[in-house]
């Protein structure tokens, strides 16, 4: 494993999701004047979003040894005061019991929610939205600079079957559900910020409810499409030496070369593995959100990362924190997928003459196939010569 690359990826992710202000520590505070309780400096430091060491409160939960005798005046609550009890609730250290059934019902206060909300409403929307817009702008510029990739010498007029009906069905099941998930996901994430100010709460409400229903339920079609396409195409997407040559030649996208390729070229393999790996990740985090508190995975994942990279990620997380991290991760992975798929849609439609037909009706022009998948054409023709199907 390339640890430098992995380290760089984790660093980039950490940079993306963390506010630089959070990294600053507040200066140590003398609390003797308040008997150890919080001071004005503590409050002001929090207002400035500085990192405040809360242990003077979170660890100050009373001590049974300090309990006055039961025969003393006004009786005793034990070794803890009411303030101690509220601090225990505040820091999720109270020995709470509840009649409410369901996971995490005994967590009364979990203040990670504010960090999650700020992250979700701030950097996730800003960076995620910018990445999508950036890719669209980049592709528009590319289109006007490079133009549509034409079939050199024009189409041959005869066609060859590129994808069977079942392959196209799997692709469109995956694509259709992904587009629905992307649009409803964006609406769920950004609707409050961008749509409510325009259409109002009354109009947004049914839209949000419908989006949530569609997002939650069409996810199963996405997962089925993911499995179908993986099974059908994984054998054709194993990387080989040919891919490196294809990449070195810019895939014919930059320049006019037509590097050799089998059924899938290196660019398509990158899209395939991006969709598969991120698709599994977005599905798993999506399942954890669909079935709250049933798939808690971040504490375990952080423990593995800590053991490999020597980092100090938290390995004890409240159930709600697991859900919040799951939500953020789901959004980040989804944005990366959306950016990749926008590029995929471009090259499969307006970016290249003759490409859409491959998934449209399954038949591509022979000349197009020779220029972009010459070795695949040879394989198909050799098989047809032997009387086998493609």
């Amino acid at each position, binding site marked *: 494993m390339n640890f430098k690359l992995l380290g760089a990826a984790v660093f980039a992710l950490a940079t993306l999701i963390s506010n630089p202000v959070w990294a600053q520590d507040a200066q140590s505070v003398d609390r003797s004047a308040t008997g150890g309780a919080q001071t004005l400096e503590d409050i002001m430091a929090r207002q400035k979003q500085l990192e405040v060491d809360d242990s003077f409160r979170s660890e100050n939960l009373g001590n049974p040894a300090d309990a006055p005798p039961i025969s003393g005046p006004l009786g005793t609550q034990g070794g803890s005061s009411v303030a101690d009890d509220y601090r225990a609730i505040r820091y999720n250290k109270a020995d709470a019991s509840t009649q409410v059934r369901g996971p995490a019902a005994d967590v009364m206060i979990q203040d990670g929610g504010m960090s999650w909300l700020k992250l979700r409403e701030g950097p996730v929307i800003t960076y995620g939205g910018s990445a999508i817009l950036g890719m669209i702008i980049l592709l528009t510029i590319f289109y006007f600079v490079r133009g549509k990739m034409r079939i050199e010498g024009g189409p041959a007029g005869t066609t060859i079957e590129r994808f069977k*009906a079942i392959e196209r069905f799997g692709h469109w*099941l995956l694509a259709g559900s992904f587009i629905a998930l992307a649009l409803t996901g964006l609406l769920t994430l950004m609707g409050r910020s961008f749509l409510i100010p325009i259409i109002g709460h009354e109009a947004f409400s049914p839209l949000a409810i419908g989006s949530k229903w569609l997002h939650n339920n069409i996810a199963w079609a996405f997962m089925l499409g993911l499995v179908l396409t993986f099974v059908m195409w994984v054998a054709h997407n194993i990387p080989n030496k040919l891919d490196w040559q294809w990449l070195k030649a810019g895939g014919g996208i930059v320049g006019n070369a037509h590097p050799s390729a089998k059924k899938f070229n290196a660019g398509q393999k990158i899209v395939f593995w991006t969709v598969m790996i991120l698709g599994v990740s977005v599905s798993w985090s999506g399942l954890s959100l669909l079935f709250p508190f049933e798939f808690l995975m971040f504490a375990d994942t952080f423990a593995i990362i800590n053991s490999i990279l020597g980092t100090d990620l938290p390995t004890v997380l409240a159930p709600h924190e697991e859900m919040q991290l799951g939500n953020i991760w789901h959004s980040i992975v989804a944005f990366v997928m959306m950016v990749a798929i926008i590029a995929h849609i471009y090259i499969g439609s307006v970016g290249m003459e003759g490409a859409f037909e491959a998934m449209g009706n399954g038949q591509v022009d022979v000349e197009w196939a020779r220029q972009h998948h010459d070795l695949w054409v040879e394989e198909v023709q050799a098989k047809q010569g032997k009387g086998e199907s493609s």
Partner: protein
Amino acid sequence: MKVMLAGFIAALVIAALAPPVLNQFGWSSAEQYKSESVRLD
């Protein structure tokens, strides 16, 4: 194009069938936490 439409329609059909099918397996979150499941004794 027919296959493309079939893929889209299949995705919607799966979405429509998902809630009742999941309910058969007791996987409905609405079912899991409904008030009847709370015992007050």
